[in-house]
Each structure stands twice: as structure tokens, then as C-alpha cells.
């Protein structure tokens, strides 16, 4: 049975689009049939992050308005056989689509793919309601900042009100060296506050900027930490039990000191 997963955050700029592109690509790497849907009508970006911007002919609004058939709007990825993009319209706004239309669209996509990933726009208005309308599951992306965690908390409440219970959390752009110094909230702090399950932690990594520049999702880069993190999340999405990268090394100086002393015994 196909899964429809919405990637959302409330706050803008925390990495929803990058996450969608990487999870989509990662799932396709594992051999699944995947479509990534850009629900950010008017501010589309999933196409450039995927490096497919030059191939767009039709978009999601054309599909719901019956201008073209669904298959005509799907753009095939450059690298992976089973990966497709359904781009957002750039010259329309969020009201061009209704939640009911999104629901029927995702139902059609479910017939064709194993995974349907929806890149949700920032905010809690119509665009958000459209993006979550057809979803079975939600991934909430946040960064270790007060504003992002606060918005994530609000989104979790709205998801639960929309009966999308048990969303899972991705903590993006964590900087271990700052966590160690006590200058950045750690993973536990955020899980404790948001009270939802964690599905992955992505470190702040220059490789993301570079890969986005090129339009090649970082998950394809075997040498980057962020790529590894996304590959792990992808496997967890398919139900595999992948251990989290050990962050215990950031337990602080006391723990380190203890380790040294116990070693000396």
C-alpha cells in the first residue's frame, strides 16, 4: 500500500524542500517508485533543488484543472528510474487548489507509486491545508532554534487536529560543536519539548549548499555526513530499524572526564 507523507514545519527556511528532495531521492535509490509533489504553489523550488527546473511543461494546477493528464505533468528524474516530480505552478497562488482536489490527486498518485512525498509550504493557511489533505503521515522538520521549535509545536497541534496523529520529527542543521558548548539545544531537549518520535537528525553540512547549487540532492553524496543522515532516515521510513548516529560524545566535558578517569583505573 502506497504511503502519502507530507513534509511540513510551520516556519520557512528550515529545510522542508531539501528534506523532500533527499528523502525522495533516497527512497528511489532503494528501488522504490517515488513521486515528490511541490505543494508550494506560487513559490516553487523543489524543481531547482532536484535539478529538474528545465523540464517543466505542466504543473499541479494544470492537472487539477484538467488542462493536462496527470502523467503528462510528471517529470522523470535524471538519475533514478523510479523517481518523479510533480511541480507546483509558479504564476498562481495557494487558492488555485482545494484540499478536496489534493486528496483526489494523491489518491491517483497512490495507484502509481510506492511513496508520495508532499513538500508543504511554510505557514498554516490554505497551502498547509492543501498539502496535508491527502496525507497519511507527517514529517515535521525543525532546527534547534526557538522560533522553529515553537512553530513545529503549533504545526504538531494542527496536524493532530486534522487527525494526522503521530507525526515524526527531523531535527535539521544541528551543530554538534555548539551543542557541546551548551549554546544550542540538543536532541533530547527538543524531543522533550515537542513530545513526538524522532526519525532523524541532520547535521549542518556545507555539502548541502554545494549539492543544492548543483541540483543534486546530497543523499547521493557518499562522503557527506548529511547524506548519510538522509540515507538513514530513508531506511527508517521503509520500516528498517537503523540506529541513530551516536551523539553521546556531546554529553559534555564531565562525561569525557569521567571516561578518562575510568580508563586510567
Amino acid at each position: 500500500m502506497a504511503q502519502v507523507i507530507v513534509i511540513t514545519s510551520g516556519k520557512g527556511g528550515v529545510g522542508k524542500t531539501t528534506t523532500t528532495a533527499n528523502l525522495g531521492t533516497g527512497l528511489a535509490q532503494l528501488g522504490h517508485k517515488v513521486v515528490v509533489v511541490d505543494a508550494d504553489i506560487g513559490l516553487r523550488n523543489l524543481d531547482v533543488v532536484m535539478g529538474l527546473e528545465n523540464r517543466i511543461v505542466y504543473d499541479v494546477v494544470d492537472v487539477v484543472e484538467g488542462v493536462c493528464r496527470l502523467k503528462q505533468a510528471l517529470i522523470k528524474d535524471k538519475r533514478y528510474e523510479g523517481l518523479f516530480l510533480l511541480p507546483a505552478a509558479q504564476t498562481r497562488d495557494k487558492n488555485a487548489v482545494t484540499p478536496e482536489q489534493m486528496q483526489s490527486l494523491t489518491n491517483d498518485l497512490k495507484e502509481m507509486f510506492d511513496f508520495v512525498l508532499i513538500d508543504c509550504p511554510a505557514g498554516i493557511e490554505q497551502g498547509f491545508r492543501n498539502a496535508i489533505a491527502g496525507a497519511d503521515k507527517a514529517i515535521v522538520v525543525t532546527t534547534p532554534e526557538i522560533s522553529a521549535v515553537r512553530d513545529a509545536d503549533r504545526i504538531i497541534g494542527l496536524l493532530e487536529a486534522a487527525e494526522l496523529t503521530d507525526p515524526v520529527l527531523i531535527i535539521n542543521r544541528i551543530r554538534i560543536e555548539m551543542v557541546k558548548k551548551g549554546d544550542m539545544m540538543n536532541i533530547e531537549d527538543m524531543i522533550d519539548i515537542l513530545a513526538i518520535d524522532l526519525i532523524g537528525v541532520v547535521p549542518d553540512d556545507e555539502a548541502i549548499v554545494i549539492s543544492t547549487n548543483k541540483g543534486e540532492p546530497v543523499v547521493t553524496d557518499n562522503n557527506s555526513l548529511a547524506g548519510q543522515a538522509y540515507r538513514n532516515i530513508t531506511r527508517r521510513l521503509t520500516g528498517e530499524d537503523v540506529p541513530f548516529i551516536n551523539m553521546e560524545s556531546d554529553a559534555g566535558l564531565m562525561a569525557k572526564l569521567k571516561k578518562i578517569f575510568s580508563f586510567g583505573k
Partner: protein
Amino acid sequence: MDFFKLFSRESGTSKNVAKERLKLVLVHDRTNCSPDFLEMIKGDIIKVISDYMEIDEGGLDIKITRTKREFDDSTIPALVANIPIKKMKDRVR
């Protein structure tokens, strides 16, 4: 290595400042109530309880926090009041 950091209290780090601020702001986000509203509750609680016992009004602490609901473990807001009692009043009136 910053040797003195070893002995500094962890609560002084900026992440703890962030955490405390976040917790406070989420209480109000989640329950949609203002500090004024809490003050009103506090006043009314004092009024009711004062009939039965003498309380330390300065030490009274009332806050909205979160707790796990017993039967399904889901998180719900909870009103927690910590009221120090000075002495019980004679209840025979």
C-alpha cells in the same frame, strides 16, 4: 579546554535560556491563555482556600505545564498549583 566551564552551572548556558523561554512561550501558545489570566486564577484560588487554611501567598506558585494522560499517554496541558500552607484554620464555624 575551558577549565572553568567544568564548574560553571549548566543552567547558565544559552541553550538553557532558550529552553526556558521556549517552554514558557509554548505554555501560552498551547493553552491560549495570558499571564493575566493566570493571575486571575491565582487570586480566586487564594480566595477559596483562605476560608480553610492560612497560606503563604508569596510562596504560591501556579503554572500551566504538560502531563501525560493516564489511559492513553497522550500529552495534555495541566494546571499545577503549589500552595504552601502556614496553618489550618478552625473549620468549625
